[in-house]
């Protein structure tokens, strides 16, 4: 970039000069080209009308267009349900293998399996659940043969909100296990002993010491789970083929062909999603910061 600087003598200084920044130019160049520019394009586009003039109309229309509101509401509900459900179940699992008194071998087994399951998503996950809970799935048949219960007659349907939630849970609660296990390890034995010496019961210890210490971590992780489900696309598409119009699927339709008949509105929809993801990540890192005061 500046060939004249190369011949200058190399001096080691405590504060790095501008030349030190040359070392990170490739990284920043890459980030700008393939991460920043595409995002900025969507951002700028969301403020432009069909003629390219500046407008707030697209952003306002996000809150008035029923199909978009429905998509957001569906995504929010499914993310919230699987974040809370997965969060609670993941917490209980993490508890059982850390301080719940299970053999130590089960812990590494669960952690490894969680690592796999939280990465096992998309098309294969959808297929696995079709084989399990689909109309001719393994569990469906099992229920019919053993309990004489046809789960599809009870109103269950894999290709619906409930079914998709069950499927999302497969990568949601393992993620919770992976985050919560170290946090539960951080509960100091001295706290429990001190509580016991002061005459606290098990319930009192949990309600007044352990849970308050863990709460930011639990909430933070659930927020992370929320974002995790919110950004999911392939699992939902492979399972329902677009029948459940969550935000990611709506955006996909907008990319393929301008289904909203307004490119700017499509960009605004994408930006709304980025906004929700950013808020959830910020919430997670803020709460994680609060946790570290105690657990570390």
């Amino acid at each position, binding site marked *: 970039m500046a060939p004249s600087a190369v011949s200058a003598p190399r001096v080691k200084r405590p504060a790095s000069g501008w030349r030190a920044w040359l070392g990170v130019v490739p990284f920043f160049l*890459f980030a700008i080209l393939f991460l920043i520019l595409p995002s900025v394009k969507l951002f700028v*586009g969301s403020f432009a009308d069909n003629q390219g003039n500046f407008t707030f109309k697209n952003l306002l229309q996000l809150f008035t267009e029923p199909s978009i509101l429905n998509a957001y509401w569906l995504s929010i509900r499914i993310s919230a349900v699987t974040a809370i459900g997965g969060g609670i179940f993941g917490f209980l699992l993490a508890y059982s293998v850390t301080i719940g008194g299970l053999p130590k071998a089960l812990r590494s087994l669960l*952690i490894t399996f969680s690592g796999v399951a939280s990465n096992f998503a998309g098309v294969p996950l959808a297929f696995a659940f079709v084989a399990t809970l689909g109309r001719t799935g393994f569990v469906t048949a099992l229920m019919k043969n053993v309990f004489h219960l046809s789960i599809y007659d009870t109103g269950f349907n894999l290709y619906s909100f409930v079914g998709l939630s069950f499927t*999302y849970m497969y990568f949601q609660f393992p993620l919770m296990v992976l985050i919560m296990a170290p946090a539960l390890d951080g509960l100091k034995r001295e706290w429990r002993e001190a509580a016991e010496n002061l005459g606290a019961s098990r319930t009192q210890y949990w309600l007044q010491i352990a849970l308050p210490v863990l709460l930011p971590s639990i909430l933070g992780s659930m927020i992370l789970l929320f974002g995790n489900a919110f950004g999911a696309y392939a699992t939902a598409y492979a399972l329902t083929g677009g029948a459940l119009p969550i935000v990611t699927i709506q955006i996909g339709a907008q990319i393929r062909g301008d289904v909203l008949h307004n490119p700017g509105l499509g960009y605004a929809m994408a930006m709304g999603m980025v906004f929700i993801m950013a808020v959830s*990540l910020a919430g997670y890192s803020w709460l994680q910061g609060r946790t570290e005061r105690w657990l570390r």
Partner: protein
Amino acid sequence: MTAQAPIAAPPKERTLIAHSRTRRAFPLWSWLWFILGALYFILPLYATLDFSLHMERGVIGLKAYGAAFSDPEFARTFGYSVFLAAVTIIVSVLLVVPTAYWIRLRLPEARRLVEFITLLPFVIPAIILVFGMIRIYSSPVEIPFTSIRLLAPLTTSKLGTNALIVAGYVVLGLPYMYRSVDTGMRTVDVRTLTEAAQSLGANWLTIMSRVILPNLRTALLSGALLTFAIVLGEVVLASYLGLPTFGPYLFLLGQHRAYEPAALTFTTFLLTWAAMGIIQLITGGQGQVAGAH
């Protein structure tokens, strides 16, 4: 409590005893949660395996696997995905290692900014990323306010589309690769290693290739395996950029076949398992989380 604990027992043992005294001897609830969790993990896999083995009526066999693997389209798309994964890994190592190294050694003030950038892919899901990429690179890239053309539209040429998807995959893997490498550099103390190498007269290339990279092999391997797992199952970028990789192939196969997709699903799971198992083995840590959900 501590006074009563057996003195000779190692610390872990003592924790167990101390706990068992305050709760029931048999952790009933813990077992219950664990078994529920295990069922949730295993049932879908078992169901998939079971289904994939029953292609021939009344016979348990590997016919579906044979049929799936012998499809030339499978070999083509799977090979293509593996190729893309390899290129992605090489590019991200070349991008991340020198950057993380330089930041540790020379430019600590850039740390926060770079870490922020590596976390951005968590905020920008694949569908948004590909949306933006298509809108930017489907028309020629020009210098703003002029008509000087820097780059022909990438999405119209094969090479351009491939470059775009590799770039996208590097972005998706960036958080994991960067964190893995950065943690690796912290544990091996690159500064001391560099100074030692310098005092022995090594140049930068030697330091990188013979000192830093070999010392990072665990971190690199775990980052690479994770990237591999992401790329192999990825559908969004591939299908919107219109590239025939394994993910879209599996999806299409699922539209008109029953047993072969199940066989490939189970195979994918085994591959994910292998990748994560190796990461677990070499890092001995908590494992990492990625996701092309």
